[in-house]
């Protein structure tokens, strides 16, 4: 079995690719980016794929009930957002308000990060990143929320892309046991 940090780095690579795809779409605009159907389906498919793998992790992540519940919630959020967006790009759903599902998924995922981290910010690097990622996702929910009500403004697309790039950087920085700004609790299993 891979270590938790190994799984996080693999997800970071996926989120980095997702961020680059979304950034390219924000730069050229959806009208150009979605000229090729496979490209239009790319980010919803990646979200569904991430949801699928999060379900796998949920099944094998049995070391704590809180982690199991958190991973299950992220899996549900990713699957729902991916499925809805896939229907949107295939024009089965047309209302921009479907972006509210993505917003809700980001918000719930962020809250889940914050709730399931039982330690303080400076307990260890992983605890710090849980808090940072949680708050970032909660705040980032504003981007798809804005896209639902003002879909023509590019700032939402750039913000959404930046969210995944930032998440990738944070997950790449994750270690199972490592200090944060010189702090590492004795209870974390290591010494600073």
């Amino acid at each position, binding site marked *: 079995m*891979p270590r938790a940090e190994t799984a996080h*780095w693999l997800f970071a690579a996926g989120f*980095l690719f997702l961020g*680059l795809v979304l950034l*390219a779409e924000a*730069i050229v605009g959806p009208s*150009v980016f979605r000229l090729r159907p496979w*490209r239009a389906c*790319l980010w919803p498919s990646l979200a569904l794929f991430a949801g699928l793998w999060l379900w796998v992790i949920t099944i094998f992540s049995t070391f704590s009930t809180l982690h199991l519940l958190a991973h299950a919630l992220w899996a549900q959020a990713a699957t729902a957002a991916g499925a809805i967006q896939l229907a949107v790009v295939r024009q089965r759903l047309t209302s921009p308000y479907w972006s509210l599902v993505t917003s809700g998924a980001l918000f719930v995922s962020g809250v889940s990060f914050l709730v399931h981290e039982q330690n303080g910010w400076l307990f260890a690097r992983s605890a710090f990143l849980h808090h940072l990622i949680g708050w970032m996702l909660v705040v980032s929910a504003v981007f798809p929320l804005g896209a639902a009500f003002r879909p023509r403004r590019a700032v939402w697309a750039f913000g959404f892309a930046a969210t995944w790039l930032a998440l990738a950087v944070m997950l790449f920085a994750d270690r199972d046991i490592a200090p944060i700004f010189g702090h590492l609790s004795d209870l974390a299993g290591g010494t600073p």
Partner: protein
Amino acid sequence: MNELVTPRPQPVEEPRAARQGLRVLVVEALGPLTVLGGCVWAFAQPYRVTFFYPEGKDLWDWLVQPPLLVMVVGLVFALVVAPGVVEDLERPAEDAQG
């Protein structure tokens, strides 16, 4: 026509073409910049690359090396996604000229 309404100093197409050129440049640069980021990371933290410190590493350490993952992502984006995006971005301008 008065002092507030004057002839346009340059055609509308010029700034539009310049913006499009900038977009092409940025999209083409995303992949190489990501690869460069992975290279810089590998040199800044060589202990995160198993090839440099192979002692006592397991299979997962060989399979998942973060700086190399970043380079692979940049390469995949540059080779698979970016060329088509640039081609589609340049197509309307070519059509307009033709």
